């Protein structure tokens, strides 16, 4: 009796194990819900693309569907009137500066926390942990008037410094996990060979930590490109607006002209989406492990 139930059970088990992780035919329920969710996530983006190539007339006749005639003039008008070229240039400056700044600040801090003989190591590490969870509201108001006083309000470097500062703590902790994984014998050997701390850091360890730096660069760059809160508050001159606020003011000037504003939106998201599709694995793992802020 027991053997019988046992074999029966085993057979059932094998059947279950076979059918579980399989093709579409084996898990229709999962696929059904995943497709619903994918449509929910994806369809609105397709509408953005479709409507960006529709004339005003076609938008009225065909508000959501695939465009019948591809009318690219929205892109030309949006580019000429929306100050988007300047916005993209400003954002490029901001993103590049922020990434480099974070690499320097967080790279050095992570290096010393992970590998050097730093006094109060735990204290510094904890400080960064606490700073990550501090709400921006806590320092926003005094920061704005401090920046006004020193002339950094309404300048790109002023905004850049803020981005570097708010991104450095989490980047430090992320880079630290990369750096502690590098064998310690390497820098011992470099030191015995007479390398200075700086040479050890830049010529031995840095090349090995490149994947970590790349991940940090992507996350930080993305957040600087999309950032709105500080950009709205700290930048007001039209010629200095980064792309996010340039797009915002364009969309506020042309409400309900969806073709035109959607074209500007597509222009803004193309760099991000292309970069993401090229490096999705790094993006996703980076954001799942380290992009735990904003």
């Amino acid at each position, binding site marked *: 009796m027991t053997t019988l139930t046992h074999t029966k059970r085993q057979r059932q088990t094998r059947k279950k194990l076979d059918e579980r992780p399989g093709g579409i035919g084996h898990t229709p329920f999962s696929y059904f819900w995943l497709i619903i969710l994918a449509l929910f996530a994806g369809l609105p983006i397709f509408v953005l693309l479709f409507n960006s190539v529709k004339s005003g007339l076609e938008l009225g006749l065909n508000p959501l569907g695939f465009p019948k005639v591809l009318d690219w003039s929205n892109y030309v008008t949006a580019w000429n009137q929306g100050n988007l070229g300047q916005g993209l240039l400003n954002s490029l400056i901001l993103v590049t500066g922020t990434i480099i700044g974070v690499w320097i600040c967080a790279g050095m801090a992570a290096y010393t926390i992970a590998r050097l003989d730093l006094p109060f190591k735990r204290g510094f590490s904890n400080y960064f942990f606490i700073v990550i969870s501090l709400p921006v509201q806590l320092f926003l108001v005094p920061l704005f008037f401090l920046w006004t006083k020193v002339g950094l309000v309404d300048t790109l470097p002023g905004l850049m410094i803020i981005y570097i500062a708010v991104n450095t703590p989490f980047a430090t902790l992320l880079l630290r996990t990369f750096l502690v994984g590098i064998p310690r014998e390497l820098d011992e050997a470099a030191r015995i060979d007479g390398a200075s701390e700086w040479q050890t850091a830049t010529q031995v360890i840095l090349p090995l930590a490149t994947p970590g730096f790349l991940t940090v660069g992507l996350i930080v760059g993305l957040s600087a490109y999309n950032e709105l809160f500080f950009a709205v508050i700290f930048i007001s001159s039209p010629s200095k607006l980064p792309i996010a606020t340039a797009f915002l003011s364009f969309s506020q000037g042309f409400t309900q002209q969806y073709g035109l504003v959607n074209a500007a*939106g597509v222009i803004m998201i193309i760099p991000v989406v292309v970069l993401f599709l090229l490096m999705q694995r790094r993006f996703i793992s980076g954001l799942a492990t380290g992009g735990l802020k904003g």
Partner: protein
Amino acid sequence: MTGAAGYGEGDPSLDQKMLPPRKSRTRRRRRLVAFAFLIPALVINLLVIGGPGIGSFYYAFTNWNGFTTPKFTGLDNFFTLLGDQDFWNAIAHNFIYMAIFLTVPLFMGLVGAFMLSRIRRGASLFRVLFFIPYLIASVVNAQIWKNLLDPTGGLAAQLDKIGIHWLDNIFFFGDSHLALYSVAFVDNWHFWGFLVILFMAAMQGVDASRFEAARIDGANAWQEFWHIALPGIRPTLMFALMIISLWSLLAFDYAYVLTGGGPAGSSDLVSLLVNRTAFGSLEAGYAAFMALALSLLGGIFLVIFAIIRRNEDETN
């Protein structure tokens, strides 16, 4: 990784044994160098976050307007806040926002992640699709939904074509009964994919043999989810609850772009109010107090979560 971490901490006793005679001088020099590496991060941090953050504690108790010398006014700002209808209106909305975000995206994220963990083919395609809205800037996401939910264009107009007029006069962002929920809906559309990725990474870390054991015992999908997957990602789940709670207090982008807090304050959030108070009406001292109150509330959440975590660690 953990082994390397332990080794990487730098064992001082080892150094002492290796360099007995010049131990203290070398050590001090090495510590100075180590500290020097920290200087850029520390300086920029104190300049932007540390200094102004501490400044907040002082300005919050003054009538500062941002430019003249602040005058200490004791608890005046506190009493103003107690009677400030706008603040209580906004913070109530933050709590509604939080209630929505602690349920809807969490549910969608868990469902998405669990379903993804069960399929073999196409998982990476779904993952990319779910994740794209999270990458797109809030200003563009807001534009997408402004278009879709426009009462004369978008979904309403498309439905008109086939004779359905349900959405004709619904102003999702202009109706004071709907504005807050519409804003939260768009924000959620952008956010839930992030939770899928977060939970999926956590579920991959759950010991596969536990799923197998459950399957051998004849567990169905729901039982696998409830008894294995969910307890397996418990730390990540707690973490998600914590960051959602904190972010809900600070939510800014979507309300700012879609409604500006309107109509008539019906979708106002504290971040927007602080922004208007500090830089619009130049009541910097009072705005600092408001922001401080909000930060303290966030701090209370952090402490609560820390206590829960500690209790869990002890029971386990």
